[in-house]
């Protein structure tokens, strides 16, 4: 592919830039989810640990959730922002703008993979072996990257046109955090909330991820199909919206 080299450079740039001027460098990638997990673990393990199905551990359950949610929320905002923040380039040199959104999603994917090292350590400490289905996390990661890039592309148009989209997206992401079984098991909620959780696409990604990584979830065939549908739909939606509105939006950069 013609733009493979450029995408590789962009992903590398995004990864190095984010933590370039900090002392612990790439450690920030790990510190943020690890600290969040530590706090949530301290607060909620008393309430929810006993409510997990037998054989599942709360600590890896939680860290996996934080890791996947961080990937989605950071990837989404960054990929939606990437086109606006690279407007200086896009109004001078022709490159398909979609490349920037895709690279941001891929950078999120790389961070996600790096985050699996602390997750593996947490699994080890809590005495949970990694599952033989581990390679399937690649599939989940890619599917989530597609979802992120798709929504990111659609949102990037909104980000350029309306300044307050950012705030709205942040609020929606916060709601999404609580409607995804990250620090609680879905079974601990009442049936209305469970319904929301069930149809929340992120739940499917997360369930599959936990199961594939350390056999810490119970995804069904529905989750696999639901995940695939959302990834494909998001990508179609993103490319469609972007193609349609970009010609008018580029003049606003």
């Amino acid at each position, binding site marked *: 592919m013609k733009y493979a*080299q450029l995408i590789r*450079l962009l992903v590398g*740039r995004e990864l190095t*830039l984010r933590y370039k001027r900090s002392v612990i460098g790439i450690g920030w990638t790990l510190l943020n989810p690890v600290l969040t997990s530590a706090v949530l673990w301290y607060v909620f393990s008393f309430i929810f640990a006993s409510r997990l199905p037998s054989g599942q551990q709360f600590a890896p359950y939680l860290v996996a959730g934080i890791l996947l949610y961080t990937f989605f929320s950071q990837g989404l905002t960054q990929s939606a922002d990437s086109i606006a923040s690279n407007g200086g380039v896009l109004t*001078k040199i*022709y490159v398909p703008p979609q490349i920037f959104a895709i690279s941001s999603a891929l950078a999120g994917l790389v961070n996600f993979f790096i985050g699996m090292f602390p997750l593996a350590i947490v699994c080890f400490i809590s005495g949970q072996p990694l599952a033989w289905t581990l390679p399937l996390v690649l599939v989940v990661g890619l599917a989530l990257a597609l979802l992120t890039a798709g929504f990111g592309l659609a949102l990037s148009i909104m980000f350029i046109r*309306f300044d307050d989209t950012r705030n709205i997206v942040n609020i929606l992401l916060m709601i999404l955090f609580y409607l995804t079984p990250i620090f609680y098991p879905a079974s601990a909620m009442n049936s209305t909330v469970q319904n929301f959780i069930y149809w929340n696409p992120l739940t499917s990604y997360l369930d599959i991820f936990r199961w594939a990584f350390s056999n810490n979830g119970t995804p069904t065939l529905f989750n696999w199909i639901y995940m695939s549908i959302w990834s494909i739909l998001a990508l179609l939606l993103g490319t469609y919206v972007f193609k349609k509105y970009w010609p008018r939006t*580029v*003049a606003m950069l």
Partner: protein
Amino acid sequence: MAVIEVKNVNVTYRVLMNKSGSMKELFRDAIRGKARVVDYVALQDVSFTVDKGEVVAILGRNGAGKSTLLKVLAGVLPPNKGTLKVDGKIAPMIELGAGFHPEMTGSENVLFYSALMGRDVKRVKERTPAIGEWAGVSGHLNFPLRTFSSGMVARLAFATATDEQADVLLVDEVLSVGDTDFQEKSRARMHELINGGAAVVLVTHDMNAVRTLATRAVWLEDGHVKMIGNPAEVVAAYEAN
């Protein structure tokens, strides 16, 4: 054979009268019936061709549509009407150093900038020392760009942008950069590129450059072509205006 073919190109910007920068404001204005969209015509029925080896200069006052035209030629701004055909590799010399990042090193920036212009990363990697040398920043290539002086940044950008001969050269006022010595050097290289067989579109306010470099001139006024032809004649008419 025409390398660039612009046919009846129209570009219209849509401008919201009460600029609604947020959804909140748009919503409020829509309810009060105040959101009005006004079309601003930037280019109107513009047609011309540029052959291989030709240098076409674009003249016109500020706001005549020159920058818009360059954006259309660069492929960044799709025209609302009309067709555009550009063959071959484009080197857009419009505000050099687009995509430069202060936190990345000199050589990383050279690489990224070149990749944006569609050059082969592997070849650029080999060329980077030579590019740094020519720009006079060899010793600094491994330091972040924020440690460069603005003159060094401009020289590095120029050296990178002009390192490869392209088929189509779009030049916006960058005939030379830097201090006196470097200006001489960069002007020479610019002339070399312009006369190197590419199809060149040159936007400039420097009438001397138009007379000496251009083979044809296009005079834009309020978005349409007012006059097109021999550079000396067009410049005379433009200056008389």
